[in-house]
């Protein structure tokens, strides 16, 4: 398995002269510099609200699911439930604990999601493959039901709707789309960096060993049960924080129905399209998933005019999305991340020729 080798030793990717001439941290640092400095100056409010904020939240959720599904090989169809747990936990911690800083609420929300993730990850100790995938649906339905049913979670608001509190970080109030963008960007950057450190550590290698062959992993001394549960906990933590961003930074008003099965599938699609077992992939996948409905609606109304109403748009979105999934699985199973690598190599070759 070629992906296996490159996962294990990050430096062993077939390097081109272009990337060899640059240190490995150059690209992430450039991206971050652009994201922190250039984007706030250039982007419009629409860009923040409709594209960048959902992109950041979904990317983080994708990173979380990728740790579980891509690295540790446990398919989960309940990601949206863990997002919901994160969002509602952060709301309640913020509401009910006096003087708790926002960061505290976020960490506690992540830990709550991790605890729920652990509970629903327990079946993974006995179940594999499809049986496990189906059992994660239990999390999806149970959490959504509990949040709607028990109004305590939403402070007795109608049908479980919660409004995000004002965001205070270190004495500053985060306001407006730009502020929320920078806040979300910081959270995503920190967690992505930690995830990257995790997957290249011994723990990350254990994840991959369990994914590729559980029995073999057990024989060489990987603690399989502990590893699986850890994957569930870490992944749910990250997805939970993504849920906080979704609720607090992006939508500001959420209801349990927003975290439905379609959202879970959306996150799974992000991971598939972006590329399993790559941290970068989640960002590529999320970018595509967020941008493509907007592009499709513009394109559709341009080509078809009035025939292209919202109903038709909705349906054609489903068709194109489904077809994209199949196409990626057939033609580019390693996802956009692999595509990007190939592109970079090709550019490197062209540059070298000159």
């Amino acid at each position, binding site marked *: 398995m070629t992906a296996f080798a490159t996962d294990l030793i990050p430096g062993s990717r077939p390097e081109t002269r272009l990337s060899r001439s640059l240190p490995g941290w150059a690209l992430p640092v450039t991206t971050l510099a652009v994201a922190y400095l250039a984007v706030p100056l250039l982007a419009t409010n629409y860009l923040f609200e409709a594209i960048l904020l959902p992109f950041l939240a979904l990317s983080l959720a994708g990173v979380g699911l990728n740790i579980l599904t891509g690295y540790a090989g446990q398919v989960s169809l309940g990601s949206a439930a863990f997002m919901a747990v994160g969002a509602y936990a952060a709301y309640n911690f913020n509401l009910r604990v006096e003087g708790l800083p926002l960061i505290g609420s976020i960490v506690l929300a992540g830990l709550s999601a991790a605890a729920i993730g652990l509970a629903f990850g327990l079946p993974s100790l006995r179940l594999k493959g499809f049986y496990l995938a189906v*059992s994660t649906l239990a999390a999806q339905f149970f959490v959504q039901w509990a949040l709607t049913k028990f109004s305590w979670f939403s402070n007795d608001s109608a049908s479980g709707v919660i409004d995000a509190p004002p965001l205070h970080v270190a004495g500053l109030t985060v306001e407006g789309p730009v502020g929320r963008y920078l806040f979300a960007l910081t959270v995503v950057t920190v967690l992505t960096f930690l995830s990257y450190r995790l997957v290249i550590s011994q723990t990350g290698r254990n994840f991959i060993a369990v994914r590729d062959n559980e029995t073999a992993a057990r024989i060489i001394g990987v603690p399989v049960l502990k590893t699986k549960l850890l994957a569930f906990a870490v992944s749910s933590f990250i997805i939970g924080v993504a849920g906080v961003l979704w609720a607090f930074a992006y939508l500001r008003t959420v209801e349990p129905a927003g975290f439905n099965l379609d959202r879970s599938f959306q996150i799974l699609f992000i991971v598939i399209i972006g590329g399993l077992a790559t941290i970068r992939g989640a960002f590529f996948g999320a970018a595509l998933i967020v941008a493509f409905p907007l592009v499709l609606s513009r394109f559709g109304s341009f080509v078809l005019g009035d025939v292209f109403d919202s109903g038709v748009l909705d349906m054609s979105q489903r068709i194109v999305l*489904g077809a994209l999934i199949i196409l990626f699985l057939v033609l580019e199973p390693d996802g956009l991340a692999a595509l990007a690598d190939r592109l970079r190599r090709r550019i490197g070759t062209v540059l070298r020729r000159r």
Partner: protein
Amino acid sequence: MEGFDGLFFLEVLVGGLLSGVMYSLVAIGFVLIYKTSGVLNFAQGAMLLFAALTFVSLTERGISFPLAFAITFAIMVVLGITIERTVLRPLTNRPPITLFMATLGLSYVIEGAAQLIWGTQVHGLDLGIEDVPFDVSGVFISQFDLFAAAVAATLVAVLSVFFRYTRIGLGFRAVADDPFAALAVGLRLPVIWATVWAAAGLVALVAGLLWGARVGVQFSLSLVVLKALPVLVLGGFDSIPGAIVGGLLIGAAEKLAEVYLGDYFGGGIESWFAYVLALVVLLVRPAGLFGQKRVERV
């Protein structure tokens, strides 16, 4: 609750068992495909929606019942062959979970296409069966439910005979048992796959009509797949008897739980009860009640 009303209990139980038959009907379609190609076909619900929607739209355009049935079946066969060509064949020898994700994508395509072609409005479907409950020594049983149960029983009988006595049916079982050995003795895998997807299309059509008559033909029809999954988990993905028994168990347990336990949880527990039940069973028997145990080799 004061005193235990035995008759009421029986009525709930029978109602649950009969609605369980409806779950089994959907589950059988999954089992057919899982047995022969090892794919958990998430698109089964979408196929069900597509079949029911096509059938209803045809009858609404004045086409007679049997003809509409035949046309829809033909379309399902074409769909099965198309899926085999465009999705399954390029993905041969890939991990089962990849194939599962492909069927997820497929379900999006089919759902979208069904509604793009036939529209999104809710269609009523009248199969000409009166849904009047009749009285069996104090227990009321819905006539429609009995009809559904009879259809399911017939379907299972036909499928069993087909698998046991026909050449292509035996081919199915050979492929299910060992695809490589089946190829080696000259069975044509693509033909068998296309046939089995067509058969699953037929099951989807039958289930779609019965469910459609029950709840109306609309988008939510494709969500019955979510009802069938715990049934499959409970019975084992590769067992038709498992699908039947699992369906009956889930149907009965779900109704009884809703009636007798629902109050303690504040109602609405049917959205997750089946899953939790299936999970509990799985913790004891990881391959379901009737599923085959897999021996793992390094």
